[in-house]
């Protein structure tokens, strides 16, 4: 298990290196660049040449890349040119990461908390109105674009329910400890700050949760349908066990393997969904920085954020793979 984990982490280093090289090259192939983004209308050939030199963009691309790697090894990922000009890319990431984690965490929690029980019930009542209704509902969940739903929620639900239509901003009047708004309030005992942060998270996390919810629901339903047909469920029934025990110990435990896999894969969808959700709800997270960084061709920030997103994705999926062993003893002994 330990060897497996180490091997996967070594692989991750390789992935990050290759990815950084590709990103480095691709970003410089994009039309425009930080120079024209910064100078805009005031651009003259002289000014542009000067800024290009200042940013080091006049050097051959592989020289730039080697220099980047050298600086990255010391923790210096360059200085932002567009998102928060002058700030270091790493600081921007560290400032914004907690907001995105909070948003994604609540979104996936909502998706699991609703998707798994609903998937189980739909499978149990296969072909009934509840099943049909939720299958159609989940289709809508997958099909409706996040940005559209986000706007609908923002405009309709915030007015109708009086919920905040924007994410929590960084200017909150509370003690910061970890950077996570919800967690800080708990740690410092400032419960109103936690409550406030949660309230601000409701609509964005619902918007972000729809697609993962729909996917988790469908996978759970299919997995439970498979397991319900298994002989060991009949054995459990023949023992006269209570319906709850059969559900928990015999059906859900066996159905969880594909569901856990899906949850891992959905983290990728969450990260891309976060870009749109954060933009719509003005949440100062990584997604928003990515959107702005892309508009303004902020190479250092884009590079770091995308690499970090990749690392999160790979690590989450590694955790998923490791959790298989907890769920299924057949994998453990292999």
């Amino acid at each position, binding site marked *: 298990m330990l060897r497996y984990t180490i091997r996967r982490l070594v692989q991750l280093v390789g992935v990050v290196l290759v990815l950084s090289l590709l990103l480095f090259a691709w970003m410089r192939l994009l039309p425009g660049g930080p120079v024209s983004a910064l100078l805009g209308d005031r651009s003259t050939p002289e000014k542009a040449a000067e800024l290009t030199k200042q940013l080091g963009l006049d050097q051959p691309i592989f020289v730039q890349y080697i220099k980047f790697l050298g600086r990255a090894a010391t923790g210096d990922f360059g200085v932002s040119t567009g998102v928060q000009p002058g700030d270091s890319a790493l600081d921007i990431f560290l400032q914004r990461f907690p907001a995105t984690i909070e948003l994604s965490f609540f979104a996936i929690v909502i998706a699991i908390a609703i998707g798994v029980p609903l998937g189980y019930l739909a499978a149990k009542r296969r072909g009934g109105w509840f099943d049909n209704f939720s299958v159609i509902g989940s289709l809508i969940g997958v099909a409706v674009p996040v940005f559209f739903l986000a706007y609908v929620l923002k405009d309709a639900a915030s007015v109708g329910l009086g919920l905040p239509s924007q994410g929590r901003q960084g200017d909150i009047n509370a003690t910061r400890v970890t950077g996570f708004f919800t967690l800080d309030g708990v740690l410092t005992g400032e419960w109103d700050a936690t409550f406030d942060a949660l309230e601000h998270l409701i609509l964005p996390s619902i918007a972000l949760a729809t697609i993962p919810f729909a996917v988790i629901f469908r996978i759970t339903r299919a997995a439970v349908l498979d397991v319900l047909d*298994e002989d060991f469920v009949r054995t459990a029934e*023949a023992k*006269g066990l209570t319906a709850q025990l059969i559900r928990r110990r015999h059906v859900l*435990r066996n159905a969880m393997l594909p569901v856990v896999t899906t949850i891992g894969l959905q983290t990728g969808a969450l990260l891309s969904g976060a870009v749109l959700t954060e933009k719509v709800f003005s949440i100062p997270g990584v997604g928003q920085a990515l959107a702005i960084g892309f508009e303004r061709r902020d190479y250092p920030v884009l590079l770091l954020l995308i690499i970090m997103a990749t690392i999160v994705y790979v690590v989450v999926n590694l955790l998923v793979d490791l959790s298989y062993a907890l769920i299924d003893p057949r994998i453990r002994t292999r």
Partner: protein
Amino acid sequence: MALLEVRDLTVVFQRKGEEPFRAVDGVSFDVEPGQTVGLVGESGCGKSVTSLAIMGLLPKRGAKISGTVKYDGTDLLKLSDKEMRDRRGRDLGMVFQDPLSSLNPVVPIGLQVTEVLERHRGLSRKEAMIEAKNLLDKVGIPDPNRRLKEYPHQLSGGMRQRALIAIALACRPKLLIADEPTTALDVTIQAQILSVMKELVQDLGTALVMITHDLGVVAGLCDEVNVLYGGKVVEKAMRHKLFAEPRHPYTHGLLASIPRLDAAPGEKLTPIKGSVADNIPWEHGCAFAPRCPNALDVCVQVTPPEEDQLGRLLRCHNPVVPGTPAAEEVPV
């Protein structure tokens, strides 16, 4: 009074847009306390559906069950889901065909044994574990303490079936239903499993309903035998009588199709010709008639009634005369 009284048990499967299918058609039999009764027949004769109907394990939707299944005087078919759950595992135990798929792959063997003890005998997990160890010991699983912690894939096929027998008998039910318990096992293991079951059933005084297509299993185990064909009992007799003088042509055919050690070398087996697919509906005569060597004209016109004749219950217009050799040889 019989421990189990099955009367006119009928199971009709109804699917949308399909003809209703009578899997079990008016089956009646009794099981006395401690007695072993066989239900014999080929695939599709309704023997497994009969057992599932008795256990209340048929799907609620799509299966229409009628008749009565009296256990100790109570009609099990009239019990609520909850009442039936209280009885399953406690009063009635069941062993299934495929021991690997019948055990939960992600739950240790120990827990799969103890959960039934906790449920019906109110034991704590700790007490149940001690009892589970004794049970595994009793069914002949070596090193039970180690096996309790292991998972089904770590056990051999024979050991898995032993574990399932331990589970089914954990609460000392008065009735055990075994549905083809040896079919998925090696021949060498089959005999061991049968002897373990026989021994335990005798020790506990448990009545056994043995469902099988294997007449060898019946010969070694059953007191009384019900031969099923097309969802109906076609011949019911005590074991000795049935083997010595099979009267229904189907029973006769089943016995004649068994390979014999004392047969001359090169002698061919005599199979029953045709397959279940050739059956005619019971309303139009005898379902077996199209495959029957003894068939008369009346067999495809009048449904043979179940009659007490020749010292047994028989459903046949033209029973086999004792001493008849197997029907003419059919090349296989």
